[in-house]
């Protein structure tokens, strides 16, 4: 990494070395202090004018906040000039690792490249400057885009209806489980169905969601092939089960090849079949969960459909549902109030608008679980996801999944001599290695390996997840990496496996080329120090 502090320059004070409040570093390397350390009394980025007489007079008649809700003094915030602030955040941005800078195979997260055409579309003034409270007659384009995106997601997933409202994957799960509860209550089985079954290879958010909605979760073990244990599932199903939540492909990167039997067993028990769609990137154009009999699934637009993921969010977690859950979808729903859907779709694919078509927001949904998000969801993400789907087309989406699966399998085959592979099967979009051999034979843990990867300018894979794999190392390359990049990763991983044998201490010391070395994660979690003390306060207390 070119922006790193050279090894050996770490600062025992923890405040950043070689500078006192100003930005530091040597040559083009960057060492950045906290913005609090750059603060000087009365320094300002923007000086506001004193309010005019007219403004004061206008404000005088307005009701004031009650005294109990007012601050007694101004908060102490960092005081810096505009240029200092700009440099601070630009320099932090240089220290960041992102998919736009390097390989980012973070398993389970689908850190795929976000094509820049998405950003172009999201910045089109007609979309970017639309306001969620504009009346429907002034928002026809935005409503049409939301309706079209929902139609596309229905087509991709095989579900009967889609709500775009949920703002994240786990939020989509929550929405789906609230609908599950509403469905059972409506049928008079709300009291009786108290359990949600979750395989041990599911995303951790699944049991968390079930618990949030008030269900008791029951874990279903995996079989030796990494699939769900059908016998255990059948044994656990009964009139007290509200739903099965299954992540497919699972967190082992394995497609559940008994999925038809799983869904049939769940339906026979009168329960709802929930599919966590976070791993949809593996199955686009190949498997439609709605068609397979699932009742509900969330999409992660920030994974599969290339909207920003992580700090660049916000996320978007639309849900697709079967006809029996449709009445419970969140309101309002963008609907085509006037016009022929087939004609509108045909025109949209030909980049034409449809004369006479009219969209509106339907709030008349008596069985709806209600709103789950302010306004209609994260609209800017809908524009990006819609752009991604349209710019790839159905064949393109299928190719995306094929390439993502091919890349994961390429890494599986090339690395399975150097690292253990507890479930050595054809992978989908990700592959889970185990560092147990390195740990046993050389005392090098998966954490050490992940730290060593940093020194090669690559973001490490997910580690210690899924929990059912010892010393797990979960790699998801996604579809956008070149063969050269994958080969370089293979070389790096082979090099680390070799070094674990010849010089394990070097790996245990890694990373050495990053701005900071190993952080004391335990101390940070046990004794977090979240309030910064300004320099003059520290000096005053020492005086």
């Amino acid at each position, binding site marked *: 990494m070119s922006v790193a502090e050279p090894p050996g320059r770490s600062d025992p004070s923890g405040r950043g070395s070689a500078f006192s409040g100003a930005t530091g570093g040597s040559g083009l390397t960057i060492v950045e202090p906290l913005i609090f350390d750059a603060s000087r009394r009365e320094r300002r980025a923007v000086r506001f004018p004193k309010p005019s007489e007219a403004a004061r007079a206008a404000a005088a008649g307005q009701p004031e906040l009650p005294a109990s809700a007012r601050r007694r003094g101004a908060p102490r915030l960092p005081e810096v000039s505009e240029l200092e602030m700009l440099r601070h955040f630009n320099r932090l941005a240089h220290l960041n690792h992102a998919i736009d800078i390097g390989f980012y195979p973070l398993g389970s997260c689908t850190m795929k490249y976000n094509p820049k055409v998405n950003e172009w579309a999201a910045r089109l003034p007609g979309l970017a400057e639309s306001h969620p409270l504009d009346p429907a007659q002034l928002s026809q384009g935005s409503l049409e885009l939301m309706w079209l995106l929902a139609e596309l997601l229905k087509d991709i997933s095989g579900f009967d209806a889609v709500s775009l409202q949920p703002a994240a994957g786990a939020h989509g799960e929550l929405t789906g489980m609230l609908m599950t509860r509403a469905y059972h209550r409506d049928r008079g089985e709300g009291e009786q169905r108290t359990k949600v079954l979750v395989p041990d290879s599911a995303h*951790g958010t699944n049991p968390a969601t079930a618990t949030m909605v008030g269900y008791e979760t029951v874990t279903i073990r995996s079989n030796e092939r990494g699939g769900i244990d059908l016998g255990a599932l059948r044994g656990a199903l009964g009139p007290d089960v509200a739903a099965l939540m299954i992540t497919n492909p699972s967190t082992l990167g394995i497609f559940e090849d008994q999925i038809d039997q799983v869904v049939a067993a769940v339906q026979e028990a009168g329960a709802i079949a929930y599919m966590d769609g976070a791993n949809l990137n593996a199955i686009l154009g190949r498997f439609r969960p709605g068609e397979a009999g699932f009742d509900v699934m969330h999409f992660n637009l920030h994974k599969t459909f290339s909207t920003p993921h992580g700090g660049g969010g916000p996320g978007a977690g639309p849900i697709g549902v079967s006809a029996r859950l449709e009445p419970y979808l969140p309101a309002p729903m963008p609907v085509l109030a006037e016009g022929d859907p087939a004609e509108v779709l045909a025109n949209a694919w030909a980049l034409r608008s449809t004369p006479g078509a009219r969209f509106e927001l339907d709030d008349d949904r008596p069985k709806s679980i209600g709103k789950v998000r302010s306004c209609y969801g994260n609209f800017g993400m809908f524009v990006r996801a819609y752009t991604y789907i349209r710019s790839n087309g159905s064949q393109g989406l299928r190719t995306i999944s094929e390439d993502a699966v091919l890349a994961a399998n390429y890494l599986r085959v090339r690395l399975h001599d150097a690292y253990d592979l507890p479930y050595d099967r054809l992978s989908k979009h990700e592959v889970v290695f185990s560092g147990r051999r390195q740990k046993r034979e050389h005392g090098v843990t998966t*954490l050490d390996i992940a730290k060593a990867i940093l020194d090669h300018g690559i973001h490490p894979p997910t*580690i*210690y*997840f899924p*929990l059912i794999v010892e010393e797990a190392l979960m790699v998801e390359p996604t579809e956008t990496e070149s063969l050269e990049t994958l080969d370089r990763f293979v070389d790096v991983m082979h090099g680390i496996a070799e070094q674990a044998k010849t010089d394990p201490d070097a790996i245990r010391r890694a990373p050495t080329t990053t701005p900071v070395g190993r952080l004391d*994660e*335990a101390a940070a*979690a*046990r004794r977090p120090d979240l309030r910064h003390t300004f320099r003059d306060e520290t000096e005053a207390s020492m005086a």
Partner: protein
Amino acid sequence: MAYPDDLRYSKEHEWVRVEDDDTATIGITSFAADELGDIVFIELPEVGSTLSQFGTFGVVESVKAVSDLYAPISGEVLEVNEALRDTPELLNSDAFAEGWIAKVRLSDAAEMDALMDADAYAAETA
């Protein structure tokens, strides 16, 4: 690895020490603590709550993962190790003594038969 002979062990890596006729102390094993890595938080059961054998009774969080605690035996919680709230690292440094989690009044001493002795547990974790 050798484990204390006076304890019984569960497959979920909890231990039990019977103190007298009807009380016992429970905790997690050193194997579990090592696998979890540095433990940063534990959610203890409430005094007076009832544990059921192999049911969840709390949560332990390490720098690696958040895991459920499974009760090795059934019974009423008489006392919890308050020291763990501020110093969860005791679970890592002294899992079988200072890092005990709770004392319980046993509801069914026969449940001990479903647990392993030290040798069997050592074989299980080898």
